[in-house]
């Protein structure tokens, strides 16, 4: 039998790793050429990248910026780089970029949408980044009233009176629930503001405007277009779909049969219908049901439809997060005596939302891109605009330049959202580990 005892008399000293596993050579080896198959794939990919770039880069660089029509573009490129060269005609972007960004919004008022979106970003900042001072939240509360006012203009008293509705609701809640109990208070808090908005707010705003006129030039919805329109629709739909989605997801889990049935019905109906159909309903059908003479703003109608659409998807994403939460969390919250709403707010939602972040942000990105569908009902979002530009005799035949520009702008927005979601996930992970 072999001798199985062993004693080490000399310890092995520490040695440097072999050159093939560290440094650039090691990195290449490990990541690109770790096996024959990987080496072949690497070479094939490099070939593909080279092929794409060798076609795209000259097209992008050998271009014309100054022409005033597609034909002129081609002549300029041929003159500069030789007959037969194909190059991009960026002149169309140079000529029309303001329209692609702002639509027919009056050019002397461009500062208003810019200021409005700056404000909206500032208002979102304290919500998105908890490290910012909490005082900025006042801005977040004011933004929903200031931003539309800046965009559509008109009397300053309209947003003031609309905001007053919320104040009235709060007052009603306080007064009525003190006098007649909690449930009556909640009902009053719902009914009073709606009555105010439907009947009194406009009268009050008109009166105040007559007494103390102050306003800015009104801009019609028809003038909205380009990226401004996409952002307006996208921003509202995104910010509203999250709270509505939460309510729908909770409703779907409710023990109350009627609430549950309503939520399930709503979610399944909206998810079962293409967004285009909803947009057609918004643009055509709703007019038949409105009393003649009423003017229900088309952008508002579209925003409502897109928001409802996004909310249904959001509800399902959040339901996934809720389902992933262990039952023990609900039980611990119950056992401590937290009531339903407190348990939801303090225990369930923070965890469920955290789980659903990737899904939520995917939905956001999807909604933002879906805003381009409004071109089909005749609104001039960037895609709608590019169609009308291409319908011009001068620019007939321009395709890649316009769509490339639009794609790049959309990419910037969607990529930022995606990066933010990764930042948030990382932050919440380190918080809890």
């Amino acid at each position, binding site marked *: 039998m072999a001798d199985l005892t062993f004693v080490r008399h000399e310890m092995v000293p520490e040695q440097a790793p072999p050159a093939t596993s560290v440094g650039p050579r090691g990195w290449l080896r490990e990541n690109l050429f770790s096996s024959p198959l990987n080496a072949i794939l690497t070479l094939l990919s490099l070939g593909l990248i080279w092929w794409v770039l060798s076609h795209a880069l000259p097209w992008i660089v050998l271009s014309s910026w100054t022409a005033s029509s597609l034909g002129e573009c081609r002549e300029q490129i041929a003159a500069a780089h030789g007959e037969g060269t194909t190059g991009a005609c960026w002149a169309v972007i140079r000529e029309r970029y303001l329209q692609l960004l702002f639509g027919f919004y009056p050019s002397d008022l461009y500062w208003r949408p810019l200021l409005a979106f700056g404000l909206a970003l500032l208002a979102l900042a304290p919500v998105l980044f908890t490290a910012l001072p909490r005082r900025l939240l006042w801005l977040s509360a004011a933004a929903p009233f200031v931003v539309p006012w800046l965009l559509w203009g008109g009397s300053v008293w309209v947003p003031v009176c609309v905001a007053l509705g919320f104040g009235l609701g709060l007052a009603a809640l306080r007064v009525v629930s003190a006098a007649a109990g909690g449930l009556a208070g909640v009902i009053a808090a719902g009914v009073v503001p709606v009555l105010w908005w439907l009947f009194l707010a406009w009268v009050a705003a008109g009166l105040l405007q007559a007494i103390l006129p102050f306003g800015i030039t009104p801009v019609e919805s028809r003038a909205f277009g380009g990226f401004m329109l996409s952002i307006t629709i996208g921003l509202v739909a995104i910010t509203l779909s999250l709270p509505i989605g939460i309510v729908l997801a909770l409703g779907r889990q409710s023990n109350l049969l009627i609430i549950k049935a309503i939520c399930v019905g709503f979610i399944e109906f909206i998810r079962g219908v293409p967004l285009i159909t909803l947009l057609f309903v918004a643009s055509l059908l709703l007019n038949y049901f409105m009393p003649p003479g009423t003017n229900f703003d088309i952008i508002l109608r579209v925003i409502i439809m897109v928001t409802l659409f996004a909310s249904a998807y959001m509800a399902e994403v959040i339901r996934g997060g809720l389902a992933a939460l*262990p039952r023990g969390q609900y039980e611990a919250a119950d056992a401590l005596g937290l009531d339903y709403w407190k348990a939801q707010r303090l225990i369930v939602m923070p965890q469920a939302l955290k789980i659903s972040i990737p899904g939520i942000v995917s939905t956001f990105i999807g909604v933002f891109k879906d805003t381009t569908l409004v071109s089909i009902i005749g609104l001039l979002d960037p895609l709608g605009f590019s169609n009308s530009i291409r319908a011009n005799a001068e620019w007939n035949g321009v395709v890649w330049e316009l769509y490339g520009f639009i794609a790049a702008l959309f990419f910037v927005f969607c990529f930022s959202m995606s990066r933010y979601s990764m930042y948030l996930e990382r932050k919440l992970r380190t918080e809890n580990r």
Partner: protein
Amino acid sequence: MSDLAANREIDRSRMAVSENVAIQITNMNKWYGAFHVLRDINLTIYEGERIVVCGPSGSGKSTLIRCINRLEEHQAGSIVVDGIELTNDLKNIDKVRSEVGMVFQHFNLFPHLTILENCTLAPIWVRKVPKKEAEETAMHFLEKVKIPEQANKYPGQLSGGQQQRVAIARSLCMKPKIMLFDEPTSALDPEMIKEVLDTMIELAQEGMTMICVTHEMGFARQVANRVIFMDQGQIVEQNEPEAFFLNPQSDRTKLFLSQILGH
């Protein structure tokens, strides 16, 4: 079963059982669908009692103590906790729950909150205690379970035994009159079982009314004043621990004891 608590001196000066009824369960029945899980339960628990509930798996022990704070609803009979009858009235349920602490087998700490926040959450939001005061109370109880230095960590950073002690501290922060424990040590490694049992023994010495589902027979012998044996949804036998272990009456109890003490 471990006898970790056996060599500990117990100070019995404050472990008196009072005349006042803490929990009164009368002719209580519960079904899960068609399955009759609790059958005709009658049980009176006095203030200051330390009750250990044992029995084979699936006998309804968890269900019984979860009925006491209405995590499960009973369908017949009555349960009165601290003078409040458990009905569908949400106000009563919340009142009972804030008087009755519960510790779970799997701790159920809130992973997104720090240890301190776990402990102050319910006092602040249910009892409306000012934040500062709630934090002082929380630190007091964290010291008592011997982990004040972990206050600002998250539950995921603690060992199982530490997490369970936090869960006990979290319940104590609500200043409950009654504590329910559902197999608090059965998800733990042996050395951690001891630290959790020590905490529970300390609690018992202070006169807390406790109902504890556990198979820690050492703990039962030392601390309990009554052991309840359940099988098939019924209370089969109850007695003082000494008599229960040395002289069980029913055949089921004898079989059960021979199984858990036999090896």
